[in-house]
C-alpha cells in the first residue's frame, strides 16, 4: 500500500494505492486454464488522529490495485492518517501517514 497525504489549508488531500489483484472470480488462469477464485478487498477504513472518517465497503468491481482519493477537513501538520483494508480472505494491511 502507498499513501500520499497533502495539506492544502486545513484540508488533507489523501491518495491511497493498494496492491491487490481484485479477482472477480470470472477470470481464467492463462496457464492452467482454471478459474481464479474471487479475491477482493471488501472493507477500507480511514482514520484521522484515530477517529474514523471514511468506512468503505467494496465489491470485486473496484479496479485491480485499487485507488481511492478522499479529503479530510480540519487537518493540521503532525496529524496522523491511517488506512486499513481487509479482503474476503481475511488478509489485511495498514498504512499511516503524518501530515507536514
Amino acid at each position, binding site marked *: 500500500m*502507498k499513501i*500520499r497525504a497533502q495539506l492544502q489549508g486545513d484540508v488533507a488531500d489523501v*491518495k*491511497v*494505492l493498494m*496492491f491487490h489483484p481484485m479477482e472477480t472470480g470470472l477470470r481464467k488462469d492463462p496457464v492452467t486454464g482454471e478459474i481464479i477464485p474471487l479475491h477482493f478487498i471488501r472493507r477500507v477504513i480511514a482514520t484521522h488522529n484515530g477517529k474514523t472518517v471514511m468506512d468503505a465497503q467494496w465489491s470485486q468491481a473496484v*479496479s*485491480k*490495485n485499487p*485507488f481511492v*482519493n478522499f479529503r479530510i477537513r480540519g487537518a493540521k501538520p503532525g496529524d496522523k492518517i491511517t488506512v486499513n483494508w481487509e479482503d474476503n480472505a481475511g488478509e489485511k494491511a495498514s498504512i499511516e501517514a503524518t501530515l507536514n
Partner: protein
Amino acid sequence: MIPLRRTNPPNSLLVAALVTASLAGPAVASPEQDRATFITLYREKFPSVPLENYVNGALMLSGDAQSQFDSIMEFPPFQGDIDRGRTLWEAPFRNGKTFAGCFANGGHNIAGNYPYYDAVGDKVVTFEMDINRCLRDNGEAEYKFDDKATMGLITAYARTLSDGMAVDVHVEGAAALAKYEQGKKLYFTRIGQYNFACASCHLFNAGKILRTEILSASVGQTTHWPVFRGGDNLNTLHMRYRRCMEQMRASPFPAGGEELNSLEYFQSYLSNGLPMRASVYRK
C-alpha cells in the same frame, strides 16, 4: 479493416520528398528537414494541438481519454512495478558497484540522449544496450531485451530519472546518418499481409479512426517507455513495434535487434525537443 491506401496526403510534395529520399536514396533531406516536414504535416492535421502534447499519442486528440489518463497517472496502478524497478536499479552488483555508476549524472537526465551512434562499434546504442553494457562491465549476466521482469522493470524506473528532459538525439556524420536512414526506410516500407508501413497509419492517416482506435502521430511516440497497458501490462517500445508488425501480419524483427534500433533512432530524432516522461498508462 478500413482501407487506408486511397488517402490523399495533405501536402503531397513534402511527402514525395520524404518518401523518395528514404526509398530511392541518395538522401536529399537532412534529419532536421525530416523532422520539420513531419511536424508541418501534423500541424496541418492538428492545427490546435501544441507540439508538447504529442508525447501523449492519440490521447492528444480526445479530451475524454486524456482526462482518464491524467486521473490514472495521479497514482498509477503500476506504481509497485516502478518501485520494483528502482530496487533493481539500486541493488549493488557483486563487486559493490551499481547501475548509477555506469551512467553520467548517476543516470539522471540522460535517457533523452538515447539512442546514440557509437562509431567504434558502428552501431546504434539504445538505453537498454547501455544497461546491458553496465551489467557486462560489472561481471553480471545481461538482461534479455524483451524480459519484462528485468529489462522492463529497470527501464520503467530508470527512465523516470529523466522525466522532463527534452529529447536530444544526435545524428552526426555519414555513418550515423546511414543508421538513421535505415530506420527511416523501415518506417516507410510496407510490410506484412496488410501491406502497411508505419507511415501509412501514423503519418498519412494520423488522427483518423481505424476500427475503434485513433491513430497516433509518430512525433512523440518514443518519449514515454515502457508503457503499462491496461494499467498492469508492461510493454517496451520494441515490444510495441513487434506487436504493430504482428498486427500487419508481418514477421516481427527481434527486440533489441539492429532494425528496431535504427527505427527507434529515426523516431527518437523526430521527437527532439519533446519532454521525456516514464512510465505511462495506456489503455
